[in-house]
């Protein structure tokens, strides 16, 4: 199972608490994880990536294993620790001041 940590607003929208665990068939990439996440929680469509272009929304980042994966190819495999379920993929909202 792939573990995904969502920001609070998306947890509320998806009506989940804590981490989400989802089955993802290989290869485990940003794209396949988000495909599986959106299939299970359709209300998240469009909130993490654009529904047409599939581009990551500008104020969101993807972290895992203390690395920022946001600028990596959406088709690159995620770190082995994430694939093995030992570490979560973090969807993180940009900081906002004011």
């Amino acid at each position, binding site marked *: 199972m792939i573990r995904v940590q969502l*920001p609070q*607003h*998306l947890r509320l*929208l998806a009506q989940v608490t804590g981490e989400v665990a989802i089955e993802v068939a290989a290869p485990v990439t940003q794209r396949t994880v988000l495909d599986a996440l959106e299939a299970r929680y359709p*209300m998240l*469509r*469009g*909130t*993490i990536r*654009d*529904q*047409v272009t599939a581009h990551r*929304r*500008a*104020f*969101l980042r993807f972290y895992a294993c203390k690395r920022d994966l946001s600028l990596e190819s959406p088709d690159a495999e995620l770190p082995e620790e994430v694939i093995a379920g030992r570490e979560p993929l973090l969807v993180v*909202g*940009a900081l906002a001041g004011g």
Partner: protein
Amino acid sequence: MSGVRVLVGTRKGAFILTSDAGRKDWQVDGPHFGGWEIYHLKGSPVDPNRIYASQSNAWFGQVIQRSDDGGKTFNPMGNKFVYEGLPGTHLWYDGTPHPWEFKRVWHLEPSLTDADTVYAGVEDAAMFRTTDGGQSWQELSGLRAHGSGKYWQPGAGGMCLHTIVLDPHHPGRIYIAISAAGAFRSDDDGATWRPINRGLKSGQIPDPDAEVGHCVHRIAMHPQRPNVLFMQKHWDIMRSDNGGDDWSEVSGNLPSDFGFPIDIHAHEPDTIYVVPIKSDSEHYPPEGKLRVYRSRTGGNDWEPLTNGLPQANCYVNVLRDAMAVDRLDSCGIYFGTTGGQVYVSPDSGDHWAPIVRDLPPVVSVEVQTLA
């Protein structure tokens, strides 16, 4: 027992305010969708328990919510707003072509006859419609396809389609307004459109009488007299007596004819309300006095309504969708401010009182009159 339900959209969530017909004792419910911008909520005239809400923010984009129990609970609906065909370009602030990009839904207008049909006005300016209760949305692309579309240009607040008025007497007739393109009318349920801006004069554009390019802020229509329209333009209060074909100015003796909302008394089609704002660069009331102005003559002659409103040191704004009226026998008038107050007058504007004082900045106010 009759009463009212006030739907308030704010910069940080939605609030639902309810009262009996006395409109003195209020229950405040919220925030719903805390932390999100709620540009607009509106109930279906067919089924008052059906409420649609536009929820958005910069992080997570656009979400559409729907309640089927009068706002007690909501469920997310479809949020895929895709321009039909090649989106094309409009003009950017610097006059260069800029591709159409969906940003958010400004206004939701439920059909007068079908609870599952809703029209959505969006930024960048376009009109969408759902016929399945919000699950899917299709663009009414005839609006952008109007020949002037490539010349539309955003105002400072973005290029938004913010006003949708449905004519109850002429099926298929729809009025919309876009900042800063102007007003448009469709007579075939949104398939084709034409600009209706003759008579508008805007000193801020190169040709003050241009067919498009006017910054219309709001249009109001009384359902019993659908050919008469009132408009709050960037500057100027305007009136049309022929369905928007021609407009004339009725600003009269207002202290400032800049402002955002305009609305009409539920039982008196010639009684209209505006909230004058000092100027387009000073978005607060003249002299720091929050005054609603009422005309009982369809414009030109205006009286200030001040009883219960702050008359010193008040520097809030009232946004275009933040005024509404109820349909009780003694018509109630409501408006919300960027300072977080929502005011009610249960007697057509003679006396005012705050329902709430400390909400986030109010973006929209709608009222449902409940049997």
